[in-house]
């Protein structure tokens, strides 16, 4: 089963209007059957040095648990302005989350990295469950995660 999340059209068009050149990118995150509650997942961009740039998506309803997505939490400072309108439901074990959004071309092939942090109640937190560079070459390539992520890929 797929958990498909789409940014509302209005926001999407607003984003593309602001960015001179933007394209639609789809991130697919499949979780392992780790046998726990639904996972909180943070999808975000960093530069090559690992410094936080921008939030792509936060899966998980309760902001009070966001601090467990520790890499992202450090970078974003947990400021709600960083993730407003970019949140959704947590992802159950074994399920796949697909996020599609418009992303400025300047983030692609410029050394930026997509990072995934994951956390599950009563289980460990995984900072940098997945770290992959956002490149044209990388499209369609599947990466295994260190924690709860079974596989991660993106396409545009």
């Amino acid at each position, binding site marked *: 089963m797929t958990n498909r999340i789409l940014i509302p059209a209005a926001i999407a068009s607003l984003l593309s209007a602001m960015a001179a050149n933007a394209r639609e990118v789809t991130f697919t995150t499949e979780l392992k059957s780790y*046998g*726990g*509650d639904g996972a909180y997942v943070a999808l975000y961009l960093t530069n090559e040095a*690992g410094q936080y740039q921008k939030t792509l998506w936060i899966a998980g309803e309760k902001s*009070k648990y966001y*601090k467990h997505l*520790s*890499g992202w939490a*450090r970078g974003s*400072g*947990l400021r709600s302005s960083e993730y407003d309108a970019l949140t959704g439901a947590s992802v159950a074990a074994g399920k796949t989350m697909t996020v599609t959004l418009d992303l400025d071309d300047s983030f692609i092939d410029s050394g930026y990295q997509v990072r995934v942090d994951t956390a599950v109640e*009563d*289980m*460990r*937190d*995984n*900072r*940098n469950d997945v770290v992959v560079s956002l490149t044209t070459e990388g499209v369609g390539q599947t990466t*295994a995660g*260190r*924690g709860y992520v079974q596989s991660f890929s993106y396409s545009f």
Partner: protein
Amino acid sequence: MIRKLHSILGLSALLLVVVLAITGVILSINPTIERSQASVMGTSAITVAELTGKLASRYPQIEQLQRTPSGTLIVFYTDNNQAGADRIDPFTANTIGPYTITPFKTWLKNLHRSYLLDTPGRIAVALGALVMLLLSISGTLMLVNRAGGWRYLFRPIQGSTLSQRLHSQVGRLALIGLLLSAITGLYMSLETFEFIPDHQTAEPAFPDQVDGGEPAAIGSMAALKTIPVSELRELVYPYPQDAYDVYSITTQQGMGFIDQSTGQLLAFEPYNSRQKIYEFIYMLHTGEGLWWLALILGLSALTVPLMTWTGIQVWWRRRRAIPRISNNSKAPSADSVILVGSENNSTWGFAENLHNALNSAGYRVHTAAMNKLADTYPQAKRLFILTATYGDGDAPASAKQFLKRLAEVADTPSIPFAVLGFGDRQFPKFCGYAQQVADALKDKGWPALLATEMIDRQSSQTFARWGEAIGQEIGTPLTLDHTPPQPKTVTLQLAERINYGERVQAPTSVLRFKMADQSQPTGWFQTLFKTSKLPHFEAGDLVGILPPGSVIPRYYSLASASVDGVLEICVRQVQGGLCSNFLHNLNIGETIEAFIQDNPQFRPASGKQPIILIGAGTGLGPLIGFIRNNKSRHPMYLYWGGRNPDSDFLYEQELKTYLSDQRLSGLNTAFSRIPKDSGYVQDKLLTDAEHIRALIQNNAQILVCGGRKMAGGVVTAMNDILAPIELDVTALKTAGRYREDVY
């Protein structure tokens, strides 16, 4: 009102509450299991620096160190790009084994807090907790009402059925645990739904200035050297390739960051009071870190399925007893009015019987609850009031408004009245409310049709006798034959008989029964589990015997317990008595139909205090049963009265045996028909007053069994004996130390 609320809540949220309780019971075992596997003692003497120093070589890719409230230490690490978690020993830092969370535990926890339904489920759970809270409160109020006040809440509980007694007794035990679980659970729910502000202390701001130099060895870090392992909650290591990352530490006091290069504490935020409150409540609810509390809460929750089952039974029995009066005349046209005061509806059965008897004799009868007292009954020639008493002489549910209503209807012409009280002689204020009602009517100047009569434990015989008396008063013979619903009977066979007392005109027999031979197994169940065993009973319980051709059972006190292998009673032949004559003429091998009625209030108290047994005639029956089963040789003193030692000295040989093997400490007999030493048992008590006072001051309990006249004489004598030590029988009764079984 409270009772109605209690039933409605209990029945409507039955499933919610039972699921919460059962899952809670299973979860409550965890803290104990975890505690038994964790080393906690002495961990306050080791610092986090020492422990992590040892761990560094063992787990080069350690990411996180956690200590659960039970004291289990867990390391989270990455090995070969795969995440792992181990339990470790706090002293040696050795691996104990892998740390796993079973999916079952997660499932169970989710079932407990959201019925697996997420947010809607959490709302339902909150409702379940609220219902649990209201059930506990309303249940407590009912117990208090029934006991007659808060002071008496922990006195022995009376109740007419096993399910009722279990419900009260078990509920009373589990009360504190259930209240605690419900309140703390509700608090957590309220916080989840943000009715209470969020408890979490804001994390300290991430430090602006980080040294960024070469990481220091963790074992050398100053900040970690000050924190004992027992205080640790969580230590998150910096991300390996990130020189500007820090250690995040969470302790019992708060959270902060540690510079990985200097080892200094960069920021620390102590918990705010809201978080401390929440954590305390969380601990009280889960018992995490307080294994013994978890077990108490678990045991309390374990009673919930039993409480549910007995609660349904009590409710169903009461519901079944709800009256359906046919041919009920309207108040203005009735010539006879019956008003009923009932708590659990059993009095209505008697009222209905009276209603029907009067009806078929041609009267126009109006029957209603006492609360429904009309302003006027223009045609009424007679008023019957049948009422139970609730608690300490209070009005039962359907009569709560009666005395107030009666005061309001000032100008009603007077109607001749008869009050019939229902109650249990064991309560200090036996039929106290019936008496109040009779007094109120008398004060109003209404004439009494008949003196107030009182019915002990729903006695059908007393009711029938009262019917005869009423019949004589109104000039129409009345036959009242109401029997409260009886349990199923078993067939018993007379196995042995010992006769006494022929010579003194008091033929008395000790009869011993066993299960009848002909009750052959009929189905596979009976074949598998031969049910030819006697039903369970203790000495002092009652056996109801149905003489052939009668629907009204006669009760006899049991002189044996079922473990003795026989059912033994002691019966005196009464002139014209249907049942006693039937039993006296019974031949060995012939059978009777009988059932057991529990009588748990009439038993020797457990404990070391002395027991004074007082009885006359066949009243010796249950008393001999107590002595026979006094295997732990508690001090028991028997005072018993008969007529002539040569003829009706019941159990003479047995008593002598018990004296010699110390099951009986003292035997005092009185015989009324012999010239020297003549007198009644109460005279014997007065002679022995000094000794009895000493025993009472030694916390003795008194059990009296026998005829009503003797019991009255004993009360008078005991009050005389007790006066010098400023006590009386009423005080002892309220304390549960003076119990009677009187007929």
